[in-house]
């Protein structure tokens, strides 16, 4: 690892260390968790998180 790293270097290191599949799995997991916590409108799940959604200031009702 050089001492003058760039964002491009970091992407290169990540590519060397992990397979595309592993990277996709990480990003898909984060995206799915974000969607579930913030934007899921399924009534039971939505209502169960009612106080949480108000507390984090995410649009509700």
């Amino acid at each position: 690892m050089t001492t003058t790293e760039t964002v491009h270097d970091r992407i290169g290191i990540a590519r060397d260390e992990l397979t595309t599949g592993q990277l996709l799995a990480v990003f898909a997991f984060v995206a799915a968790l974000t969607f579930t916590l913030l934007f899921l409108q399924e009534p039971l799940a939505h209502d169960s998180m009612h106080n949480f959604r108000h507390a984090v200031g995410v649009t509700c009702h």
Partner: protein
Amino acid sequence: MLVDYLERGVLAGVIAGLAYGLYMALVANPLLGYMETVAEGGEHGAHASAGEHVHAAGEHAHEAGEHAHAVSEATTAAVSIGSGVLWGILLGGAFALAFYFLEPALPGRGRVKTYVLAGAGFFAVSLAPWLVLPPTTPGAEQAFDPTFRSALYAGMMAVGAVVAAGSIYGYRRVSARSRPIGAVAAAVPIVVLVAITVVAAPTIVEIDAMPAELVTAFRGITVLSQAALWSLVAGCFGWLQTRAGVRPAADRRDDLLTSP
């Protein structure tokens, strides 16, 4: 290396999430329960006065109340606490991934970088969307349907990310010559976004059924709690990085330059 960062981010997220879950249990759940009661009280007042607009607002509050009680209050409280913990873990994990890739581009040195990224994250995830969709209380009247508002919230997150990136880029470009001018360059995109939303954004959230002071206090505590959560994620992540012996590239470069 990416996996190490992610591991520390998730661990920082667990610590921050547990603290946020505690906040949900001790502050947010009781406060929102009280505000539900106030909103329902507003509805009864509306029935007594029989004003058409107020009546409509009261009905909405009633609907909101019924909507909230589709599951039991105990379930809502428990799931909300659990969601608070998950929220911390999500922010910690996402923070670590972003930090791994963006660390070389962030201004500052050492742990300052973690706080810069946390500030940018807080701006993108919460502050920018709140310029259009401020935190709502129970019984609030809102324009547009929830799907559109969710899309708007997501869109403002993207706008916030671009503005935060622009702000950091502006600072990096100018601060080498003068830090004060760099700070001004960093502020420009943020001020422009705030000005545009103040002038152009429609009023989406209207809260009639609640005392204004209570709404202000609720919004204040919401902003502070989210800011505290991001700070905690950044603080714990920085501490874990130091503990693991990770040293920023700038420090390593300084060592090389000063060593004989």
